[in-house]
């Protein structure tokens, strides 16, 4: 009975909400597993499972997600939708992942702004990942709407990785968002592994900057940060990464950007070794699409524009 009410609740909402939910979290109808859906600053639907409990914070500014030790193969969806022009939303979500758990977390934020006011969502996600636990965390950002109001997203992610744990974070933002400042921080204990994959495309006058700061504190811990981006129009992208090797560890960061039109891309890598056995590498490449790649695809029958699209599609795939 309770379940039936919920279904009605989600599907009873506007088509804007339905669309944004689908884009940012792949949700159609009622999602499986644990979830919390937040719209314009309020939690509008939620479900916990036997192993995953979602609670409101006492101050009402977000949720706490508790995953029992040993939980395997379950997922948590926590999409956020802002569709009221001029709404500014700040949320703090904390995740406590028990030892040996192995789960997927899907977050995402969709902004629909048909109005003239600035709509903003600042999400702070903090992960406490237990020993030997594994987390795959996906975050999608999407903006749409015909109004002149700006769409702003500023996600902050903080990851604390306990011994032998693993967290893989994948973020995707393809146009639509006017301004983004993403901050990701991580600290790792012994043998912990952090993998971050970022895909980004900006156009028009959009501005996106990404900051990573990773502290490799444990023995044999490792971090791998990979960013692929395409900057079009007059957009600006900044990539700032800081990796500190404080023990015998391995750190790798890689920024690969295609620049088009009058865009600007800056990449500022900083790697610091505080330990003789810290091995740190940074690679950065910024350049336009290689002419010979376009030529090759044209010999297969694609026009120049089709060739460029195909190259970008592959690059951000």
């Amino acid at each position, binding site marked *: 009975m309770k379940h039936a009410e919920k279904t009605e609740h989600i599907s009873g909402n506007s088509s804007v909400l339905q669309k944004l939910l689908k884009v940012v979290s792949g949700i159609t109808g009622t999602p499986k597993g644990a979830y919390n859906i937040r719209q314009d600053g309020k939690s509008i639907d939620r479900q916990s499972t036997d192993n995953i409990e979602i609670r409101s914070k006492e101050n009402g500014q977000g949720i706490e997600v508790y995953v029992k030790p040993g939980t395997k193969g379950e997922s948590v969806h926590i999409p956020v939708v802002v569709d009221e022009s001029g709404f500014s939303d700040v949320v703090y979500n904390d995740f406590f992942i028990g030892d040996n758990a192995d789960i997927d977390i899907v977050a995402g934020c969709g902004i629909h702004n048909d109005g003239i006011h600035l709509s903003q969502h600042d999400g702070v996600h903090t992960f406490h990942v237990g020993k030997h636990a594994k987390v795959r965390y996906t975050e999608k950002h999407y903006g749409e709407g015909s109004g002149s109001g700006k769409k702003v997203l500023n996600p902050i992610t903080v990851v604390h990785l306990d011994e032998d744990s693993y967290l893989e974070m994948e973020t995707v933002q393809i146009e639509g968002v006017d301004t983004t400042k993403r901050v990701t921080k991580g600290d790792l204990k012994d043998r912990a592994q952090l993998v971050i994959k970022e895909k980004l495309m900006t156009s028009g006058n959009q501005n996106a900057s990404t900051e990573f700061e990773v502290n490799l504190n444990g023995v044999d811990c490792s971090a791998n940060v990979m960013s692929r981006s395409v900057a079009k129009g007059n957009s600006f992208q900044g990539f700032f990464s800081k990796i500190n090797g404080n023990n015998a560890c391995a750190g790798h960061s890689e920024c690969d950007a295609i620049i088009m039109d009058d865009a600007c891309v800056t990449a500022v890598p900083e790697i610091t070794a505080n330990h003789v056995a810290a091995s740190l590498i940074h690679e950065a490449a910024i350049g336009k699409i290689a002419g010979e790649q376009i030529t090759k695809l044209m010999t297969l*029958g694609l026009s120049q524009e089709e060739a460029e699209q195909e190259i970008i599609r592959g690059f951000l795939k």
Partner: protein
Amino acid sequence: MLELKHISFSVTDEAGNQEKEILKDINLTINKDSFVVITGPNGGGKSTLAKIIMGIEKPSQGAILFQGQDITHLDIHERANLGMGFAFQQPVRFKGLTVKDLLHLASHKQKNDQELAQYLNEVGLNASNYINREINASLSGGELKRIEIAMLMAGGAELSLFDEPEAGIDLWSFHNLIKVFEKIRDMKRGSVVIISHQERILNIADEIVVISNGEILTKGTRDEILPRLLSESDTYQFYKARGQQ
């Protein structure tokens, strides 16, 4: 089916004043379903000629007719869509695009996964190991060359141009490659132009064209040209000097 009329190609040097003629008054006809091998010393202008046929370079003078149509001013993809294909001497790498993506495009999105896989097998690449690989720096030069050839086979063009397909391919694969070209020739589905220095490829040609110093030095049937290439080592030094694989 392809006619080159008085094709010349010059470039200006870096200083921008000195003209350099890379191709001089080339006249050449490629017949329907014929198998033509172009050979000649390095730097003679063979690759440039192939690029002019495909539209990658535009001639300074002259005209190109394809199946009776003047294509001199058509762009690369327009020529591709009329039925031309080109396997590069130096294949291009792509970050993110896979072997399957490119084979799919090469086949004009007309062939299924199984058919695409078959082309890889034909060029000696185990399809299941390669079909989902990215065409990036992880592939060797020889692997890329074979994928390049598979793409052209998947395209089924009326006119296929191969620029030194043997380069960078090991001996074992080379023997299989010859079989691939013999098969292409025997199918008689479209004209094939191969730029090559290899005797075994020259051996299966209907016609041989020798290009040197931007000019056609000589051309004719295989039986006319090949014995001269082998014996007149003074004139055709480049050929002997390359040795045999």
